[in-house]
């Protein structure tokens, strides 16, 4: 009976993920997967030889309740770090399972012991790494920590973790001090591996940890002889790996590069000699420019979402359309904090699909656009990615906003973007800066257009 419900859960997970791969059926997909989870969880209460039910229900209530509350409350802009933290919890849980099994030390065969240790290592790294990723995206930890010989030290910590892991596999007793040191090393490695990675690369890292957690879950599934965990974990492991590759490709950065070079810390000086000055424009001039344009392309970035300006911007767009202006949204694959994040944010504001264009679809249209309105985006429109081989973002596909006849950049201040790289676009002759909070600026634009 338990096996049957696990089987049903595994089927529901795969069908659910399948349905999630199309916008039309996506919502049904998560409900299916949710049903699978519920069935499997309830069935587990009937697992033979179980005790500690009271504590177990308490633990579910605490963990589930806290996650329910935070999940309901979190703003859409903070979604990536929430995914990171929930994912880290999964990795931690996988590591905890391994810890309990190792403490008991009753393994049916050597291969299960090996799998338990590997799963524990991966799960621990995913756990502590995800927590660092969360702290970085949440702004609790601003800097990238880099020091000479860092990679060597990381390597030593990793090697030490493996040595202790091997020790656990071969020794007679799996509990005790060695176990403790093993977990401490694995957790430390997760932290140290994530610390030097800059915020801009975080989505790729979170996705990678997501895949790792999946693998850890699968390995612990083998140890426990739990088919649902094996299948679900493996599916997530491979899907997550593919997703990580897709994201890294969108940013034109090989995964090894993301993991082993401190991004944002090395760059920054390259574009110092851009020449020219930033020219300001006020809201009324900007509004006039756009109201009498034929075609306006809006490039939204994470900054817009932080300022909660997407609703106002959409309202502004509707006013422009009433004046006969063609308005399109151009979305860079990594706009927001991860691929597709910006689409979610615009969908939240009610922007219809047919106004939103991908990088490949829209890039040819910029030369015909009268105005490119860049709001809260920075690195994804930085032309040095095309021109300057010394720049850390050289080669990354960008939106060719600089080719529009006029560029208006809405920006909070004069600072650099998330990656810390100076943006050559702001110094171009056809670019104008419109300083201010995204929402305030959008409000002003709306008023100005209404008065025309």
């Amino acid at each position, binding site marked *: 009976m338990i096996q049957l419900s696990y089987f049903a859960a595994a089927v529901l997970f795969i069908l659910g993920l399948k349905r999630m791969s199309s916008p039309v059926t996506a919502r049904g*997909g998560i409900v299916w997967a949710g049903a699978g989870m519920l069935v499997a969880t309830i069935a587990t209460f009937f697992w033979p030889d179980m005790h500690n039910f009271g504590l177990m229900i308490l633990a579910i209530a605490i963990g589930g309740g806290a996650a329910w509350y935070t999940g309901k409350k979190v703003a859409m802009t903070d979604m990536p770090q929430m995914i990171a933290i929930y994912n880290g919890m999964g990795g931690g849980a996988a590591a905890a*399972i391994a810890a309990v099994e190792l403490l008991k030390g009753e393994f049916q065969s050597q291969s299960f012991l090996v799998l338990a240790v590997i799963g524990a290592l991966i799960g621990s790294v995913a756990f502590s790494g995800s927590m660092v990723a969360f702290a970085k995206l949440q702004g609790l930890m601003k800097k990238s920590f880099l020091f000479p010989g860092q990679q060597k030290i990381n390597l030593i910590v990793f090697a030490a973790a493996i040595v202790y892991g091997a020790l656990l596999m071969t020794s007679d007793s799996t509990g005790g001090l060695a176990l403790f040191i093993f977990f401490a090393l694995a957790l430390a490695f997760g932290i140290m591996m994530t610390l030097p990675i800059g915020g801009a690369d975080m989505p790729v890292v979170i996705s990678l940890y997501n895949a790792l957690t999946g693998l850890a879950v699968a390995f612990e599934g083998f140890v426990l002889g739990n088919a649902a965990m094996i299948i679900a974990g493996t599916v997530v492991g491979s899907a997550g790996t593919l997703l990580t590759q897709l994201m890294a490709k969108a940013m034109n950065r090989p995964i090894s590069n993301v993991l082993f070079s401190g991004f944002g810390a090395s760059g920054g000086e390259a574009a110092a000699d851009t020449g020219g000055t930033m020219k300001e424009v006020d809201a009324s001039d900007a509004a006039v420019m756009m109201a009498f344009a034929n075609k306006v392309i809006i490039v939204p970035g994470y900054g817009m979402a932080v300022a909660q300006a997407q609703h106002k911007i959409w309202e502004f767009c509707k006013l422009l359309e009433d004046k006969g202006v063609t308005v399109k949204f151009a979305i860079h694959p990594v706009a927001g904090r991860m691929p597709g994040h910006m689409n979610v944010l615009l969908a939240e504001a009610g922007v219809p699909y047919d106004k939103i264009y991908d990088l490949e679809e829209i890039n040819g249209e910029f030369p015909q656009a009268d105005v490119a309105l860049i709001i809260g985006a920075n690195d994804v429109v930085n032309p040095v990615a095309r021109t300057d081989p010394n720049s850390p973002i050289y080669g990354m596909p960008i939106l060719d906003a600089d080719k529009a006849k006029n560029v208006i950049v809405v920006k909070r201040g004069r600072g650099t973007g998330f990656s810390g790289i100076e943006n050559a676009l702001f110094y171009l002759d056809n670019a104008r800066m419109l300083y201010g909070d995204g929402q305030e600026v959008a409000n002003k634009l709306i008023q100005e257009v209404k008065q025309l």
Partner: protein
Amino acid sequence: MIEGFTALYIFMLAAFTGYEVIARVPVILHTPLMSGSNFVHGIVLVGAMVAMGQADSDMERFIGFLGVMLAAGNAVGGYVVTERMLEMFKSSKGAGK
């Protein structure tokens, strides 16, 4: 118990399934999908429950408790967040176009 080659077969088939399911996903769904797959590995809850249910010493119970708590957070949080994101896709479909 699932052992030896049977385990290997399951592993391989599941890996291909995951790859195939994701391969055709449009970019706009990447974030919800990452969140969705994050939810799916919340199944670790089942394993954490079993581990805790068979725990005997206080140390095992304590770690098991942590495991179940974390796993429940993974499952519930993953579901709520994914559902909220996909909810918006639905409403915008109705309103737009």
